[in-house]
């Protein structure tokens, strides 16, 4: 007896929920050769707006958690990714026409990057912060704090999963919340990652994943007054200079386009932090 196929409905991930696009639009996701794979939600500017509201609401809780706690939560995502290996490998093979070994290699690299960043959660402050020498009876301490809501255009060339992980993990480490526009033509692994996030300990709203056209959504995120940082990693094909100009209006931190996938680096973590400096009297010494 033939079984009825159960095709998966790919939706957005906003505020810990899986809504359809407010606009009701969808687009077809195909293999590189053009065979139909799935329908994904085509996010509109209003979905981006809702995602920013969700990210803002989640910020105080996520940034208020201890670095150690955030590290544990992020590490747990790596565990869950391991548990879903087959699904991710299948999706990467289908959307990017990869061989099984290439898909496996990308997944392994992505999990490794995730674990690497998770480890920094309770350590980056010691590296990026400082006790400053001052000529007076004071302690003078500089410490990095998360910026707020970071809007990200995920890498669009290749490596849909690794690219996504390489841009969201560094923003999350310090306690930022993110709104990310996934790989336009290969969004399936991003949506599966959102299912991982939804079943992990990451609070709803900390990561918000939009699928659709970066060219349509990015300008709204770049100009949004409640977004604190803009990562244009995958914006090479967009009018990214205009996006930077729009971001400058509200003094956002901006990272420019990257060829390929950004390599893991502490600089990417520190980029999404602001340094706060305090003076404290040495009264008890």
């Amino acid at each position: 007896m033939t079984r009825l196929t159960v095709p998966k409905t790919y939706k957005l991930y906003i505020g810990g929920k899986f809504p359809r696009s407010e606009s009701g639009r969808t687009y077809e996701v195909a293999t590189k050769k053009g065979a139909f794979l799935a329908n994904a939600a085509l996010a509109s500017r209003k979905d981006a707006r809702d995602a920013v509201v969700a990210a803002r609401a989640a910020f105080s809780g996520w940034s208020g958690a201890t670095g150690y706690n955030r590290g544990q939560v992020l590490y747990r995502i790596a565990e869950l990714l391991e548990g879903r290996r087959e699904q991710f490998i299948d999706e990467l093979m289908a959307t990017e026409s990869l061989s099984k070994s290439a898909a496996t290699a990308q997944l392994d690299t992505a999990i490794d990057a995730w674990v690497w960043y998770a480890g920094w959660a309770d350590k980056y402050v010691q590296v990026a912060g400082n006790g400053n020498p001052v000529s007076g009876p004071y302690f003078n301490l500089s410490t990095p704090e998360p910026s707020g809501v970071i809007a990200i255009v995920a890498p669009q060339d290749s490596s849909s999963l690794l690219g996504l992980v390489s841009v969201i993990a560094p923003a999350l480490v310090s306690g930022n919340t993110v709104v990310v526009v996934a790989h336009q033509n290969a969004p399936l692994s991003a949506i599966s990652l959102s299912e991982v996030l939804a079943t992990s300990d990451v609070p709803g709203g900390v990561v918000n994943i939009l699928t659709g056209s970066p060219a349509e959504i990015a300008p709204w995120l770049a100009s949004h007054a409640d977004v604190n940082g803009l990562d244009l990693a995958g914006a090479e094909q967009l009018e990214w200079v205009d996006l930077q100009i729009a971001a400058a209006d509200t003094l956002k931190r901006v990272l420019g386009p990257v060829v390929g996938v950004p390599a893991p680096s502490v600089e990417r973590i520190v980029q999404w932090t602001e340094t706060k400096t305090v003076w404290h009297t040495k009264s008890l010494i």
Partner: protein
Amino acid sequence: MTIESAIALAPAERAVNLIGADLTEKSLKLHLEGLPGVDAVGLEQRAAALGTRSIKTTSKAWALDTIVKLIDLTTLEGADTPGKVRSLAAKAVLPDASDASTPQVAAVCVYGDMVPYAAEALGSSWSNGSDNGINVAAVATAFPSGRSSLPIKIMDTKEAVANGADEIDMVIDRGAFLSGKYGVVFDQIVAVKEACRRENGTYAHLKVILETGELNTYDNVRRASWLAILAGGDFIKTSTGKVAPAATLPVTLLMLEVVRDWHLLTGEKIGVKPAGGIRSSKDAIKYLVTVAETVGEEWLQPHLFRFGASSLLNDVLMQRQKLTTGHYSGPDYVTID
């Protein structure tokens, strides 16, 4: 019960005209319980249908400005301080410091003891009994529960009026209403209305809070609305904001229908004020549509329709900024209340 029902009620003009000169608890009860029942399913469907209208561009800009003009900017916390009331008044005068074209709100709504601070802080923007400027509204009559004796409620009201309140938001005695003692509720509203009289013979506007979240049924809301109007209320208001559910669209629609019926019957215009739980511009626009479709656009002015709200104003301001600048605004660009 027969003894009680023989007691004559205070001769409120509207009730005497409608029910007759021999106004007693019994005749009032017969009238209120003779009102037709509410079709709950139809009411909710109608409210839901009115909430689906799409309001865009210039209509939206008009709607946002109208909402601001209709807001009773409210702070009703135990932790209210004169300083907080002053900052609220400053916001009422200039809601958006980055855009001087933003209209002023209709009123600030505070507890009775905060009225002098509100009036002083509003300064020349205070209407002080005139038709121009921002009113000061005070909640009175043992707000929010209404659980105290009538003399205390009257004192509460008189004090607020003497302090300069232009509007009094009174709560009805829900316990008496739910136990069927409509006469008690009626007499209290009449007495409070009389307490709203200023020395010069004019009256502070009286808003009667029904607290619909505690009335349980739509039939009760309809009865309470009629009761409040008959006893002399200038406005009927849904809720105190302290009880969930507060204002809902179906309840407001129902109250607007009573106001419409009263207008058809007597030609008099009664105001409606949904309060509590309206936080987004989108929700507020649904109320505007409901008002326009039920009683007419004529009601979309401050002496006939108000929003009781605190956080709504910030959302409206952010939406206005979005329309002006073309990009989304954020909470950093409005005041923290």
